[in-house]
């Protein structure tokens, strides 16, 4: 019983996020590119939000790339010593030391594509028409990133590191002992939210 209590406390999402800030998690195997839909939910949600937030600089910051039946959401990974910050000639990209995100001052961006050239994740998009390079800013002023909110498939999640490790343990336990292990998931969920 005591053990259970502990694990519930550890997976408290809010506290976890406060202490251990992993915020966006990708589960690429769950992404199906929103099959059959005209728009990909996350891309559309991001675009709508960016329009409100940045006005002119309104392209979606998330991108779903596919190969065969595999889909992969491409997002900024917020490198600690980000190549895009190093390469940015006008100084438009910067690392915010307070919140730890790599952010962009789009007014300074001139479209030299140095960041596109160095991003090892291909997470920066060239917007040739309006001459700027767009990149995810993590929706830092929002409670939950809009793409995470929009994803119905569970491919994008907001999560803390304790939750992450807990989820991984459950997953592996399930794989190994799957048929024999009986966990009341609902019980954890109700305590989490």
């Amino acid at each position, binding site marked *: 019983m005591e053990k259970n209590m502990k694990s519930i406390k550890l997976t408290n999402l809010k506290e976890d996020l406060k202490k251990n*800030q992993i915020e966006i998690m990708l589960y*690429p195997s769950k992404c199906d590119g929103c099959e059959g839909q005209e728009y990909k939910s996350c891309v559309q949600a991001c675009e709508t939000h960016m329009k409100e937030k940045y006005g002119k600089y309104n392209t979606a910051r998330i991108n779903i790339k596919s*190969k065969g039946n595999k889909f992969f959401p491409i997002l900024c990974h917020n490198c600690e010593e980000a190549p895009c910050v190093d390469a940015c000639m006008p100084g438009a990209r910067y690392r915010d030391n307070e919140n730890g995100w790599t952010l962009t001052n789009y007014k300074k961006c*001139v479209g*030299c594509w140095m960041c596109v050239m160095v991003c090892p994740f291909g997470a920066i998009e060239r917007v040739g028409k309006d001459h700027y390079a767009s990149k995810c800013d993590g929706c830092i002023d929002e409670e939950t990133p809009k793409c995470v909110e929009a994803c119905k498939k569970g491919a994008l999640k907001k999560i803390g*590191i304790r939750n992450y490790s807990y989820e991984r343990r459950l997953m592996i336990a399930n794989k190994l002992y799957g048929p024999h292990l009986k966990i009341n998931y609902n019980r954890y969920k109700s305590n989490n939210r």
Partner: protein
Amino acid sequence: MRYVIIGNSYSGLSCADAIRRFDKTGEITIISDESYKAYARPLISYYLEGKTTDETIWYKDDDYYEKNNYKTLFGKRVVSVNTADKKIVLDDNESIEYDKLFIGPGGVPFVPPIDGFNAESPMMGTFTKFDDAKKMERGAKLAKHKEAIVIGGGLIGLKASEGLRALDMHVTIAELLPRVLGLALDEISGGITAKKLNENGIDTATNDTVTKINVDEAGNPTSVLMKSGRELVADIVIVAIGVRPNVGFLEGSGITIDRGIIVDKTMMTNIKDVYAGGDAIVSYDILNKKPNIIAIVPLACEQGRVAGTNMAGIYREYYGGMGLNSVEIYGLPIITIGLTNPNDPSQTVFIHQEGESIYRKLVYDGQVLVGAILLGDVAGAGILSAIIRQGEKCLKYKDEFLKGNIYSFVIDNEFEIYNINEGYAIRGDFEDLPQFSRSNWR
């Protein structure tokens, strides 16, 4: 601890930031021979075009120096460095003592002897500083025939031409090599670029150069004589042949210089406590596997950071860099990475071309990708540069890359090699989990 940083640009500031990250109290002094706070130097051509303005050309925020507690000495030139007594001498005879010194003086434009060239003239000069751009802005207003000659068809020359063109000048680029951007591009991509320039009012005179500048009584240019025998009317002449490390002031300091400043893996020169970085140093070229001067912004920042970390007392090594560059010519983006014109016959070249809008070239050394040109469509270029930098074997992806599906490499790798089907953290403060640190990627 007294840190002194010579150079108020990419490598110098990156060094200062790295020092400040680990040493919150040390005294950091930044010296620059220009009277401006740090500005985005490669952007001076965009300044002429109006894409960046007097408000947005500054590299850092307005309160950057105060916030980080950096002392600044702007508008002062360093005349000599006395490494024995650990002090530097400025042009007003003031001497400053240091405990650790960083030298990031950057490059100075190289001007070959051209008959008639006079940098003092308001209509002639080089094009690397903010003052140069302002001078050309004034010069273009005075121009009678609206004709400009740019000597050198490299990156600076091209951007200078674009800037002058935006000031309503008709520009001719004189380039000694058979194509513009001759070292980075090949014949086809050079041709596409030249055509783009010609369509927009910039003439390219390749395999040609200026032999003499004819000047009037005031010393301003009237026309230029080309090697091919042509005489072209010229109101403005810009020399943009290239830059050389700005190391003249280090004479007699005992610092080893061979073209550029020689540094070790920690970015320290042969003299203890003196570090260097940026365009003025010779660093290791991971593709050519030899020391080389690679004067580009990303490497300057990396080198500055490594030097700064070591100066603050935390050991860190620099593994070397490679040449890569990105430029946009009238809406045509061009990215070149690594070895684009291989001399070695064992290296194989793959080319894909779609008319004059898209061109891709890959250079493989066996299984390993060593160079690429992307023209027109640059999406995912960073993935290629990461692959080239890490020397990954990717010959089987060559058709995908040529078609532009660069992301297919990532998708396969993320799914299969890293086996992260079960979840993947986009962002986190992994202070206690360094193996997750994203900076390990580079």
